[in-house]
């Protein structure tokens, strides 16, 4: 009986040891998914499975397409395909920015400029586009 208890204790210790090893090698708090948050302008940003994905190419010195149309209230994710450089995108009026994607709920109708935030060459200043949020 006593011998059996000892064996169980040993097995328990070894099991805890293995769990601890696994925990420290495979758990990485840096890789947690982002939660939806609001930016300073009140736009809901973050990850959502319900977002309409809009693909856009970013290449010296243009976005293609250079005009994006969305409906007011629509939750969209602009997925940026940086072809030759990490251009990214900022939409200053909406307080949005991202290197390879921008996700937000378009809760303000209007026309907003977007531009390249990472200086990428002589045509950088002209690397712009327009986001139209329709009523």
């Amino acid at each position, binding site marked *: 009986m006593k011998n059996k208890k000892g064996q169980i204790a040993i097995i328990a210790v070894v099991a805890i040891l293995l769990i601890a090893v696994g925990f420290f090698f495979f758990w990485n708090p840096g890789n947690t998914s982002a939660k939806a948050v609001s930016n300073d302008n009140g736009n809901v940003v973050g990850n959502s499975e319900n977002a309409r994905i809009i693909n856009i190419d970013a290449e010296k010195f243009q976005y293609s397409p250079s005009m994006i149309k969305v409906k007011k209230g629509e939750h969209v994710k602009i997925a940026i395909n940086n072809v030759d450089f990490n251009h990214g995108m900022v939409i200053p009026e909406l307080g949005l*920015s991202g*290197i390879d994607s921008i996700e937000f709920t378009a809760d303000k109708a209007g026309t907003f400029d977007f531009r390249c935030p990472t200086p990428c060459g002589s045509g950088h200043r002209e690397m712009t586009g327009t986001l139209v949020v329709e009523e």
Partner: protein
Amino acid sequence: MKRKLIFALAFLFVVIFLVLFSFNSKHKSIVGSKEILNEIDGLLLPVYHQNVAESSFSKLQKLTEGDAYASGEVSEIIALANEKEYSHIGHGLGFLHEYVQTGKISICPGHLLSHYYIFLKHGENNLAIENLESAKENFDIWKSGVKKDSDYGINLNLIDSSLKRIEAGNSTASEDEIDAFAEILCA
């Protein structure tokens, strides 16, 4: 006997736990960290508005602690922020984003040369020399790895002639030249 064995195993467990904890906290990979990528994304706008200071990068600095490349890149970004070199901060954030996303370290001798001239201009001689040495080290790797597009020959001559000029004691470069170096494609 059994009790001694249990104590020995428990002791071993504690030792391994402490060793792993120490190892893990220092060497945990930041590649793929959504938190860092989000932080970089969030910094693009204030950098675009030229509204950043050293403190703006405190969180990024903390998140990249323990990763030699990333923490070095953040230190460089902070030094550039202190000198109000905003456009070059944007570049740095772009490189850092690529590294955190893919684990790839960009080989950019042109960019390093631009930082050499910038730091020299601001009297940051140690930082300037560090960038120059890195540019020299990376030049051959860049030559073999960079995409050979139509600008390759021009860029090759630009870097080569600049390194030779510096070697000969001439470290002057115009703002346009510095910008041109910064825009050279990385490998």
